[in-house]
């Protein structure tokens, strides 16, 4: 099977602390994947490496059909390659309207002069409308993002990722701080998104992961401990010992 992203043999060390240890993990073209693991398992660092924020000490990160190495690329180039990232804390541009936030994320030329000469088109407007509908913010398009509720900000950020039309979506703890209904909606958005692209969700919350109903990878001390369905991994004794046994009673 041809993989969208192949991470192999990656290690990274911070001041003697091995955050990622010989990690190898692959993602297919269109799949929904949850990554779980206790604190310090290297989930966020893994995302940092894929998105170009952190350079690994060793290992390879290969992307797409052309087998491009992501390690030499800058954050913006990686984003342009089709990898979108949602941070743990919702980071939207609070000073700008929802529409402006989405417009900025829309897949369009990213150079300064192209942006300067950019003019609004009906196609773009339609795209924004449809994404807003997808994330349930149609009513709020003209509101400032700063006025949105916590959950709405999370959706807006996911919406911005969708607007980028990425082939791989890295989502860090999307459900944190959400009400039950909000979680359900978030699950729907992510599952729908995963129909046409790879979506990787890093999550603490087991209920949320169960609801996603997808393949699960367990990280521990910087490498893959187990992989498979949630039931499969939760029946793994080692996983229970290191994670579930302590973290999730």
């Amino acid at each position: 099977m041809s993989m969208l992203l192949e991470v192999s043999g990656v290690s990274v060390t911070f001041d003697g602390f091995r955050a990622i240890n010989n990690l190898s993990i692959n993602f297919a073209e269109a799949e929904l994947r949850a990554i779980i693991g206790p604190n310090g398992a290297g989930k966020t660092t893994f995302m940092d490496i894929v998105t170009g924020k952190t350079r690994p000490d060793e290992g390879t990160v290969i992307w797409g059909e052309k087998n491009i190495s992501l390690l030499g690329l800058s954050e913006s180039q990686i984003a342009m390659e089709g990898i979108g990232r949602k941070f743990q804390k919702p980071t939207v541009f609070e000073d700008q309207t929802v529409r402006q936030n989405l417009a900025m994320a829309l897949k369009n030329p990213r150079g300064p002069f192209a942006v300067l000469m950019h003019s609004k088109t009906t196609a773009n407007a339609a795209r924004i409308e449809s994404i807003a509908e997808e994330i349930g913010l149609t009513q709020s398009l003209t509101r400032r993002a700063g006025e949105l509720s916590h959950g709405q900000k999370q959706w807006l950020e996911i919406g911005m990722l969708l607007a980028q039309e990425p082939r791989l979506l890295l989502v860090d703890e999307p459900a944190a701080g959400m009400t039950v209904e909000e979680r359900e909606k978030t699950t729907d958005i992510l599952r729908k998104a995963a129909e046409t692209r790879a979506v990787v969700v890093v999550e603490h919350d087991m209920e949320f992961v169960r609801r996603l109903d997808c393949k699960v990878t367990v990280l521990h001390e910087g490498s893959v401990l187990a992989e498979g369905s949630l039931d499969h991994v939760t029946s793994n004794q080692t996983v229970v010992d290191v994670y579930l046994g302590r973290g999730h009673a």
Partner: protein
Amino acid sequence: MRKSFIAENPSVLWFLAALSLFTLTVVLLSEATGTAMISTSFVKTLGKTLCLCLIAIAMDVVWGYCGILSLGHFAFFGIGGYAIGMWLMYARTETIVLESLQNQVIPPTPQEVSDAIGNQIFGVVGSSEFPLIWAFADSLFLQLLMVVLIPGLLALVFGWLAFRSRVTGVYLSILTQAMTLALSLYLFQNDSGLRGNNGLSGLQNIPGFEETSQATISIVFFLASSVALGAGYVFFAWIVTGKMGSVIKGIRDNEARVRFLGYHVESYKLFVFTVTAVISGIAGALYYPQAGIINPGEIAPIASIYLAVWVAIGGRGRLYGAVIGAAFVSLLSSWFTGGGAPDIDLGVYRIQWTDWWLVLLGVSFVAVTLFFPKGIGGLFDYLVRKPS
């Protein structure tokens, strides 16, 4: 060009209307074209203030919109002034020298003319040779090109170096301050080729218009400054209103997010830094012929910090705020330091504003930062009740 940008930014029309009204009033009250209720020197002060407003807008775009607290934009302003000053000084000295050589029995050779001009200009620093940087000083067109090119190139190189190594925040501020300091120290040297601490002088005399009165020249420059400010306002409003504005405000608020959206943040910063540097250079080129003299002291780092003060007092992130801040503070400053403000007699101590103005400015600046982070422009917003 987007049709909607003015509609999205109604302040542009308001501003242009106010500026036109102001300009018209000054023209009607000036010595040259009106009732002479405003003295020529005050017309010059107002013209200079308009130039300061223009650089304040540039500063607002780079700082208030893009989040780069540059402490170097006054250096670009000064470079613009020097570039035009070189032509003004050269051309005027040439006229004078040719006039004085005319009475000689034998007509002068080009070399003799050049030596005499060089002697006039560089005599104060003990030289008569033209340094290389004066190579284009005899051409108004080329020097005008320099007004734009030198600040632009300097900003491009400096910005490229600074942004590519991801120097941000206060580090970047200090780095820009260091750049300004280096430039002013360089210009203070006698062998800088720009007359050391003497600077360039006599810039108020426009070559070719020796017969024209200063009253007329002042109003011409006032009008030019007004047009430049209006054009600059529209230009910057156009930049900050659309998607470009979204991106640079995004960079200000969350650089990493913009980067992960796929924008090459460094290019945008470089674009904003360079464009505002060019506009600053143009503002300087209009300012110094009205001031009459430019010297390296003008470029000292403190000037750039004052620029930040104006923008902060006026209100960052809104163009008219920068204009209000620059006009308000610089006019107030010349009122206080010019002895316009009456002294306050406390019995034991007499507060003379020439001595105490800076203390007042410093303290009020702290107060604005603490209590009115949105500045005077914020107050304006509040009164108009316009959601931003």
